[in-house]
């Protein structure tokens, strides 16, 4: 962190999301600086995924504002947000199961294509080539023509991320990308994330505490819808409040 004020990629201001009486997200001020990997941890039900859903426009928010590159975005529909450059992956696997691997990625790339809405064109070569490049980046090029539901769990996770990055996001929101992965599969995932952080800002929700500690620039801890602590990995590890609410030592 240099002296010049860092550019802010994504910011929430007094964000609230209530489901009836339940305050799932309660007055959250969250700032993602450009080029950082910012993790959010917290016990189950703390409101992390709901927070993601608010950021990406899946739920209408109760109160507050969200800024992306200085612009207010809380009222912009999801698909437009994606085109602006805010994209997310999902906790539960969310790929096009019956399409092939390459089609999964290609459809995501095509969303940026000016001719996408024309029902009378053919699929152009450039899109297909770009799709293969992305498959190389996530290491799935050898499976490109397999139907994606036949992939292993870990590879499906990677494909999920591949689809997400195919939309060329500036801010990437990853929701538990390591859930259900074996240690081996994790070894495949971490380099991919490390590669991605070079080109985009990332928000990461994750339970695997070792992974979070090793990857993150900044960590926020959520509990009962509020951010109770924020800081670099060492600070968080030593924070008394965090240990009590989450790590449980």
């Amino acid at each position, binding site marked *: 962190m240099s002296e010049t004020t860092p550019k802010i990629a994504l910011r929430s201001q007094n964000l609230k999301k209530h489901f009836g009486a339940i305050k799932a997200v309660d007055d959250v001020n969250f700032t993602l600086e450009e080029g950082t990997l910012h993790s959010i941890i917290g*016990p189950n*039900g703390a409101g992390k995924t709901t927070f993601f859903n608010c950021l990406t426009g899946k739920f209408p928010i109760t109160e507050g504002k969200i800024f992306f590159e200085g612009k207010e975005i809380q009222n912009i529909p999801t698909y437009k947000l994606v085109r602006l450059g805010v994209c997310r992956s999902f906790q539960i696997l969310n790929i096009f199961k019956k399409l092939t691997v390459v089609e999964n990625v290609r459809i995501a790339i095509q969303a940026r294509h000016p001719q996408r809405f024309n029902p009378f064109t053919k699929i152009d070569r450039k899109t297909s080539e770009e799709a293969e490049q992305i498959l190389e980046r996530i290491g799935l090029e050898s499976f490109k023509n397999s139907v994606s539901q036949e992939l292993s769990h870990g590879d499906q996770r990677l494909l999920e991320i591949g689809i997400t990055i195919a939309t060329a996001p500036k801010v990437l929101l990853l929701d*538990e990308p390591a859930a*259900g992965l074996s240690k081996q599969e994790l070894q495949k995932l971490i380099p991919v994330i490390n590669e991605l952080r070079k080109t985009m800002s990332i928000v990461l929700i994750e*339970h695997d505490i070792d992974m979070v500690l090793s990857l993150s620039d900044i960590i926020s801890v959520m509990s009962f819808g509020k951010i109770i602590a924020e800081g670099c990995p060492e600070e968080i590890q030593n924070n008394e409040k965090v240990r009590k*609410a*989450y790590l*449980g030592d």
Partner: protein
Amino acid sequence: MLLKIDSINSYYGKSHILYDVSIKVDRGESVALLGRNGAGKTTTMNSIIGLVTPKSGSIQFDGKELVGLKPDQIVRQGISLVPDTRRIFPNLTVLENLKISERKSADSNWTISDIWELFPELLRLKASRGRELSGGEQQMLAVARSLVGNHKMLLLDEPFEGLAPIIVKRIAKTLIEIQKTGISLIIVEQNFRMALEIATRCYVMNLGRIAFDGPSSAITENPELQKKLLAV
């Protein structure tokens, strides 16, 4: 011998998942089933409970053959599965979730009021709907739901997955208590440390085969073995 799995082979569609898997569990014993993702642990659970029918081999529970029975028939023999996604009925209240699975049997004597003692936080949430519970609360309810069925054996599929460490400890403690009342447990876990704290014996699976079986201590005390079998 309560459960005796004798070299079963199971398939998902055409893909062969389990190869000659054999597992034995004694009455009142708790056993851990470890292994990497895709090793075949969940398929083994599903084969026992009847969601997958093994193509060959036999599964004997309390002297009765289970292969070929439907899940509900198997459950009525006295085995209950706590699935990894918990599968709490979201539209029923906590109390209703318990009532629906309440069953009397000679094997044990858990009642709903016992549950309130075991998990006081559930009593507080008695009238809340399943969908309103947090992950930890759902896991407690899932375990409680199996308990009031008064089964001889519980199969726990990844009971600690996605839970905050503090909740994991709480659940583990309860499982040990449950085992003390004479109910047999099979715990499927990737988080092997926690599972081995509960279980006295363990099986490690790899690529659909049993790669190791022995007392829990054999693994906890042997980092080499951990690395080899569990790729830690």
